[in-house]
Structure formats: C-alpha cells, structure tokens
C-alpha cells in the first residue's frame, strides 16, 4: 500500500513538472513573439519581394493502389506504375477465374493556371497472343476521386477494350481522377457493360498490356 502511495506521489510530481514545463514553454513562446514584434515594429522597413511562380499545368501525380475487394482496404501502394492482375482464384461454382483484388490509379493534375487541359487514357490490348486477350474481362471505371475506396462519382464505366477516353478539366473537379481496374465478376451491378468474367477455360499463359496516360493543355 505504502509503495502505491509513493508511486502515486511520484506520478503527481511528474505531472506537475510536465505542467510547469509546458507553462514555461508557452510563456517563452509568447515572450519571443512579443519581443520579435516589438523589434520588428521598431525597425520596420518595406521590402519589395518578387517571386516567380511557374505555370504548373503540366504537373501530374500518380498513385497506384492494390485494393482488397472484400473490404476495400489498401494492401499495397506501389511506386512501380504497373498493375499485376495475376492474383486469380478459381470460382469452381461458376467456372470462372476471379480476383480478390482490384487496382486504383489515382491521378492528381497539378494546375495553377486558368488554362484548360485534358487527360487522355489510352490502352493497348492485354493479350497473350493474337487470339487470346483479356480486353473484355477487365472493367475500367473513371471516378472523381475521394479519400475512401472505391470513392467518388462514376464518370465512365467501360471494358478495358473500349476505355480510351479523353477527360477535360471541367469533368474533373480539383484535377482529381480515380481509375479503377478490376477483373469482371459476373455481377452486372459491379461490372462494366460488355465485360464478362474470365472463363476457367481461358488459355493459360502470360497476358500483358499497357495503359498510356497523357496530360496535355488545350
């Protein structure tokens, strides 16, 4: 018991010291502010400053996130601007390949001008060979970006094959855009029109494609 009282006393003492330290710190801050304003008032002079802020309409920041579909949690944020859609799992009931993940590409156009610009999304086929591709098995959704996933208002939802789009500044408030790439699930509410899930009989192999993102002024 006595030990407890001692510890409590020590804690009280510690708390008191901290309060005192904080008080002293704040007093010192106020003192410095008062002194500095007094000094600057006494010795004030007008300085002509000039600064050149460059037009930054060509600024573009991209963030690639791998998202777990079940809870929309970010599982990976990559500095490598590439989407690895290889995490297929077999849905034996529906005889399709599904993916527990989807990708988001968050785009921020950094623009300090009144100029108009457009952001262009162009795709090249995700193919294994001339006969086999996944272009109608991937949904691409363009959203105005929000902090949470999937986030934002849907602007356009298309199959990868038909996802070449040209978005203007007026369509993207704050210059923000989220592009979501996901393997079709078979759920019409979720998938883009004209997409179908990857059949279990799809030819196996390595499928590769590309997306070209371009920022250009008007």
């Amino acid at each position, binding site marked *: 018991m006595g030990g407890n009282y001692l510890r409590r006393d020590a804690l009280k003492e510690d708390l008191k010291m901290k309060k005192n330290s904080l008080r002293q710190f704040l007093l010192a801050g106020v003192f410095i502010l008062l002194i500095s304003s007094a000094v600057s008032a006494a010795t004030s002079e007008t300085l002509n400053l000039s600064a050149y802020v460059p037009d930054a309409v060509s600024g*573009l920041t*991209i963030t690639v996130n791998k998202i777990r579909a079940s809870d929309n949690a970010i599982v990976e944020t*990559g500095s490598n601007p*590439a989407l690895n859609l290889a995490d297929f799992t077999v849905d034996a009931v529906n005889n399709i390949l599904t993916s527990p993940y989807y990708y988001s590409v968050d785009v921020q156009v950094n623009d300090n001008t009144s100029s*108009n610009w457009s952001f262009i999304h162009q795709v090249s086929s995700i193919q294994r060979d001339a006969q086999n591709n996944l272009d109608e098995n991937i949904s691409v959704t363009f959203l105005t970006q929000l902090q949470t996933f999937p986030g934002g208002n849907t602007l356009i939802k298309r199959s990868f094959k038909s996802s070449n789009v040209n978005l203007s500044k007026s369509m993207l408030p704050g210059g923000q855009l989220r592009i979501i790439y996901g393997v079709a699930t078979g759920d019409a509410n979720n998938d883009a029109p004209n997409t179908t899930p990857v059949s279990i009989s799809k030819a*196996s192999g390595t499928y590769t*494609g*590309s*997306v070209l993102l371009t920022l250009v*002024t008007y």
Partner: protein
Amino acid sequence: MKINTLSKKLVVIILFFFFFFGFIYPISAITLPYLNKSKVRVSVVPGQQEYGDIVIENSTPDERAMQLYLEDWRYLPICDGSKDFLPANTLANSAASWITFSPAEFIVPAFGRQRISYSIKAPANASGGYYAVLFFEMIAGKIPAPDKNQTSASVNLAIRIASLFYVEADGTIKRTAVIDNIAFKKDDAGAFSIQADFANTGNVDITAGGTFHIMDKEGLIYARGEFSNAYSFAGDKGKLVATWKNKIPKGRYDLILTVDLGKALEEANLGRGPVVTREFEIEINEKGEIVEFKNSA
C-alpha cells in the same frame, strides 16, 4: 530521465518530418516533373531556323528518367480543344520533321532540372501553320516477368506530359473564318441559347471565342455571356455555343455577337487576332418567348 527526454524529442522530430514530407510527397506517389512551356508558338521565316529551349523541373526527392519523342497532333472534330495524337509525319501539316531537340533521354536529378534545346527549320516553301507535339514520357519500371507456368495478367502504365508546337511560316499566315447559321433559341427548360457555325477558312489554327450582349434600344444590357471556345486547324468546322439561363422581359432588343479569332495569339502574347462582330434584332413577348430574330438592317 535524459534518455527518456531525448527519445521523446527524437519521436517528435521523426513525427514532424513524417507529417511534413508525407503531405508534400506521398509515399509511393509518382510525381512527374513540370514543364515550363506546355505550348511553343513560334513564327519562322521559310528557309530559316529558330531556336529555343524547354526546362523540365523535378520537384521531388526522387530522380526521374525521361525519354522524349515527337508526334503529330490535330484537334478532334468536336473542336472543343480535345486532341488526337498520331505518329510523327503522318499529317500534311506536320512540323515533326522540322524539329530537332537534345537530349532525347536523360535523368532529372532529385530537385533538379534539365534544359532541352530545340531548333525548328522551316523549308523554303512552307506556308501556313504546322504542328507537332514533344512528349516527355517517364521511363517507369515494369512488372518482372512472371512464372511461365502460371496464368498471369499485367498492365504497365506509361505516363507522359506534352509540349505542343505551333509553327507559323512567317509572312504566309491567313487567319480567317466564316461565322454563319446563327441561331437564337429557347429550350424547354427556359434557357436561351445562341449557336453559330464556325469554319476556319485560313491556313493556320484558330482558337475562336467571344461574347454576346442583349441590350435594349437605350443601351441597357439585359443579358451577356461568353461563347465556349472553338479550337480548329485550317479547314476545320465547329460550333460556337453560349447560353443565358435567366428570363428576358418583354421588349425589343439588339443582340450583338463579338467573336475573337485571335485568342491563341493573345494566349502566347503574340498580339491580337481579327474580331468579327454581328448584330441582330430580337423581340421577346410577355411569356418570355422569342417572337422575332433577324439580322440588323
């Protein structure tokens, strides 16, 4: 006690840096360098050469590997400024073969900059406007080759920014346009719209925009607004559109359209272009409907 205080200070310092730099450079975000010129408009005497440079600036703590290449471009038929890109020297008005630049590949160091020098040599028979785009593409890593025994799908992202070149053959430029089929209508929602067909009849690109004013006979303005810009190359046709969503009281008015064909020149600080003015008479009845719309005598 001292160690405890030190470690607290260390934590505060680490948190400060994490907070500060975390906001400026989100971890794993890819920020492309900035260009100081997203448009280059230059007038070149046919047979002669012009020089210039573009500076690319990296505002991030990571170096950026870039590759540069030229392509052709043109406005899409909608004339709203959206563009189509084609391989270099595909279009008749391509300036791609006139432009040389250096370096074509480089690494912009962290918080560093790189100057790209270019020259444009117009052939002696050049006439009108010619165009090209210099792309700055970030050389990004790619997904490693997957196991060939597994089914895999990967999509590589390429990210690029552009500097558009507008090259005018000095002394040969005809900046002319025809504006006709002007219509003044009211839609079901009660908004008035003014539309006009626009045709670029010159030999150079035109960015046309303008204003409209609706005023009574005393000169009191009841409505005013701006036309959306129409972006065109020689021979292109587009539409100028403006709307007025408020009511206009019963009366007779003058509608004055002012279309500026030199917005692109103004933007490049190269002067002002020709301005086309058209005047009409309109009459609005007590229901706010248009009962007359005709050219001013």
